[in-house]
C-alpha cells in the first residue's frame, strides 16, 4: 500500500489545523454558515437530515487493517458504533458532532487517512477495480496510476472550484470492474503493441437525473501523457461547463451539448497547446517511485497439494462450498483466492458494518490477507490475498460475525443509498425497501436458481444507488406526499454498460416487494433455460412481458 511521505503528512496536518480553526471561528460566530459551508464540504462534512455526516476517503478502495481498526474506533467513540460503505468506495459516519470532527480528522491522519475532497465541486476520490493487483485477468495494476491521480488532484489550485463535482475511475483488468463508463472520466488501462502502458479515455459519463454513458474520446494516451491530457479535459470543462444551472453543470451535459467530436477537438487542441514535457518526465519518475508501494506481498508458498480448502470442499460441507463458489474469485496466483465479504446479510442494511465487524475483518486481514482490505463500489469488502489453504478458516471466522452470506452477484446483494432515513436530498427511503427485498429473497437456493442479478436502488433522482445501471433498478420518489418506487429494467455496469429503461408508473412502498417478485417470476417462468440470464432474457424478449406482469389488469 502507498505510504505518506513527509509532504503528504504535512499537507494533511495543515488542512486539519486550518479546518480546526475554521470550526472554532464558526462556533464563535466569526464565520457565518455561508462562509463556512464550502470549507466543511471540502473536508467531507455534510449537514444531513438528522445530523452532520462525515465522509472519509478510501483512496481507490484500498484499506489497511490498521486503518479499518481506526475506523472502528471512530465509529464507537464518535458515532453510533457503525459505518456505511458507499458506492464510491468511501465510508460515511452518520452522527459525528461538528465539535469532534477536527479530532476525528487527527485520528484519521495518524493512520494516513483524510476526508479531503469527498465533497464539493472538485475532483473526488479516485475509484478503481477492487481486485487491482490480484485479479487473474489484470493487464496491469492500476493503483500506482490512481495514486498519481490522487496526488495530482489533491488541492489542485486550478480545479478546486469546478462547475460541479468530478469523478474519475480507473480499471486495469480485461473486464471493467470499476464502472468506468458512468464516471466523468473513465480510464481503461491498456498496453500498446510494444507493451507500453497507456489508457483509453472516456468522458462524460454519469447517472443522476440525466444518465449518460461516457464516450471514448481517445483510444490510447501514453501513460506519461495522462496528466497533460486530463488537464486538457478539465480545462475545457472548467472554461465551458455550465455554472448557471446546477442540473446542467456536470461534464456529461457539456459533452452532450457540444457533441463528442467537438468536445474531443477542443480537448486535443488544449492538450497540444498545453502539453508539458516536464509533466511527462515527472509522471515517469513519480510512477517509478510509487510502484514499489504496490508490489505484491511476500506470498508464502501454499502448495495446493496440502490445501485444506479442497478437503473441506470435498467433505459434506455445503455451506462452505456455496460460499467458496459464490464469494471467492480467481487470484493471479493459483494457490490464493480473492475473498468477497458480503455486507448484505438477509434483512441487513447494504454497506453497513459495525465496529466489532470491522475489527474482526481487520484481524482476519492481518492473519490471512497480508493486512489488506478493499472496498467495492457495490458496498462489499474484499480480502485480496487469501491463501486457498486459509479459506475455510476465513469462512468460519466471517460466519461468526454474519459476514459470510454467500450472495455475491445475486439478488440479495443489493446496492442501496442511505435514502430518506438519512439523506437530506432523498425523496424516499431506500434501506427498508432493500431490507424487505433481502428478506423476501433470503432463500439462497432460490437466488441461485434466479442466477446472476444486480438489483440497485436510489432514494432520489441523484442516483447514488446506481439504479440506472442495475438489471433491476428501483428509484424512490415522492408522489403527493407518499413514497413511490419506479422500476427500471435492463441497466448494466461494466463491459456491457447500459442505462435501464423505466417500466411504468411507480409502486407504493407496500407494493414494491411484490412488484419485484412479479418481475422475477416472469423471468423464471419464461426463460429458455437456466443458462439464460435475466439480462439475456430481457434483451431477447424486450420489456413487454414485464409490463404485462406488472400493469395488465387482473
Amino acid at each position, binding site marked *: 500500500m502507498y505510504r505518506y511521505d513527509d509532504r503528504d503528512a504535512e499537507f494533511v496536518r495543515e488542512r486539519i489545523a486550518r479546518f480546526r480553526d475554521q470550526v472554532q471561528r*464558526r*462556533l*464563535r*460566530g466569526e464565520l457565518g*454558515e455561508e462562509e463556512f459551508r464550502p470549507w466543511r464540504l471540502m473536508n467531507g462534512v455534510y*449537514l*444531513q*437530515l*438528522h*445530523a*452532520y455526516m462525515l465522509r472519509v476517503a478510501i483512496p481507490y478502495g484500498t484499506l489497511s487493517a490498521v486503518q479499518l481498526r481506526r475506523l472502528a474506533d471512530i465509529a464507537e467513540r464518535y458515532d*453510533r*458504533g*457503525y459505518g456505511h460503505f458507499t458506492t464510491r468506495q468511501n465510508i460515511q459516519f*452518520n452522527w459525528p*458532532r*461538528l*465539535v469532534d470532527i477536527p479530532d476525528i480528522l487527527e485520528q484519521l491522519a495518524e493512520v494516513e487517512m483524510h476526508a479531503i475532497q469527498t465533497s464539493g465541486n472538485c475532483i473526488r476520490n479516485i475509484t478503481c477495480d477492487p481486485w487491482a493487483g490480484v485479479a487473474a485477468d489484470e493487464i496491469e495494476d492500476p493503483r500506482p496510476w490512481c495514486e498519481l491521480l490522487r496526488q495530482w488532484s489533491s488541492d489542485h489550485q486550478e480545479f478546486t472550484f469546478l462547475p460541479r463535482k468530478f469523478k474519475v475511475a480507473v480499471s486495469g483488468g480485461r473486464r471493467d470492474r470499476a464502472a468506468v463508463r458512468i464516471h466523468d472520466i473513465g480510464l481503461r488501462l491498456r498496453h500498446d503493441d510494444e507493451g507500453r502502458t497507456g489508457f483509453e479515455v472516456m468522458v462524460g459519463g454519469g447517472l443522476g437525473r440525466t444518465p449518460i454513458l461516457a464516450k471514448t474520446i481517445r483510444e490510447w494516451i501514453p501513460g506519461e501523457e495522462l496528466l497533460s491530457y486530463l488537464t486538457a479535459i478539465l480545462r475545457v470543462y472548467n472554461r465551458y461547463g455550465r455554472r448557471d444551472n446546477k442540473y446542467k453543470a456536470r461534464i456529461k451535459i457539456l459533452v452532450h451539448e457540444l457533441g463528442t467530436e467537438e468536445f474531443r477537438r477542443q480537448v486535443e487542441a488544449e492538450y497540444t497547446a498545453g502539453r508539458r514535457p516536464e509533466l511527462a518526465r515527472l509522471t515517469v519518475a513519480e510512477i517509478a517511485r510509487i510502484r514499489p508501494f504496490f508490489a505484491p506481498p511476500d506470498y508464502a508458498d501454499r502448495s495446493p497439494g496440502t490445501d485444506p480448502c479442497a478437503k473441506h470442499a470435498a467433505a459434506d460441507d455445503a455451506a462452505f462450498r456455496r460460499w467458496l463458489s459464490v464469494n471467492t474469485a480467481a487470484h493471479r496466483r493459483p494457490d490464493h483466492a480473492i475473498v468477497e465479504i458480503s*455486507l448484505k*446479510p438477509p*434483512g*441487513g*442494511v447494504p454497506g*453497513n*458494518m*459495525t465496529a466489532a*465487524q470491522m475489527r474482526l475483518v481487520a484481524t482476519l486481514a492481518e492473519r490471512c490477507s497480508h493486512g489488506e482490505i478493499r472496498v467495492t463500489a457495490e458496498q462489499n469488502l474484499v480480502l485480496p490475498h487469501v491463501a486457498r489453504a486459509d479459506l475455510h478458516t476465513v469462512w468460519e471466522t466471517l460466519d461468526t460475525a*454474519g459476514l459470510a452470506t454467500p450472495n455475491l452477484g445475486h439478488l440479495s446483494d443489493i446496492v442501496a443509498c442511505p435514502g*430518506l*432515513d*438519512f439523506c437530506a436530498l*432523498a*425523496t*424516499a*427511503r431506500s*434501506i*427498508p*425497501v432493500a*431490507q*424487505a427485498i433481502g*428478506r*423476501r429473497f433470503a432463500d439462497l437456493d432460490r437466488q441461485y436458481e434466479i442466477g446472476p442479478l444486480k438489483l440497485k436502488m436510489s432514494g432520489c433522482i441523484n442516483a447514488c444507488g446506481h439504479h440506472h445501471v442495475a438489471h433491476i433498478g428501483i428509484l424512490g420518489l*415522492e408522489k403527493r*406526499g*407518499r*413514497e413511490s418506487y419506479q422500476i427500471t429494467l435492463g441497466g448494466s455496469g461494466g463491459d456491457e454498460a447500459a442505462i435501464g429503461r423505466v417500466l411504468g408508473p411507480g409502486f407504493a*412502498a*407496500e407494493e*414494491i*416487494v411484490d412488484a419485484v417478485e412479479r418481475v422475477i417470476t416472469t423471468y423464471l417462468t419464461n426463460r429458455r433455460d437456466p443458462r439464460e440470464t435475466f439480462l439475456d432474457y430481457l434483451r431477447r424478449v424486450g420489456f413487454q412481458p414485464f409490463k404485462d406482469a406488472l400493469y395488465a389488469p387482473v
Partner: protein
Amino acid sequence: MKDSGMETDRRTGTIITANRLRDGRVVFLGAGGWTTEIADATVASDEQERRALEALARQSVVTCEVVAPYPVAVVDDRGRPVPVALRERWRIFGPGPGTETGYAGGGEAVRVPV
C-alpha cells in the same frame, strides 16, 4: 424562510426547526428555547406568530446556537404537532428501526409511521 410544508389545506400550524450548530441535532423552537422534542415545539397558528418565531430563530443563528432554521407545516396529532411533508416526518421520526446497525428484525411491511 422557505416553508417546507405542502398541503396547506391540512395545515393547522407552523413550527420552526433547525440543526444545532455544535452537533447537528434536529431541534425545534419551543417556549423555553430550542428543544429536541417536537412535542415541546411552539406551534404558530397564524402569520404573525410565525413571523415572531422566525425572528427568534434568526437571532439564534446570530448567536451560533443553530444553523439553517426553517418553518415546517404541522397538523395536530393527539396534542402533538406532526409535520405534513414526508421529508419532515422522516427528519423528525427517522431513521427507521433497524436501519443503523445492519440487522433488522420484523416482517416485510414498509410503512411511514405517521
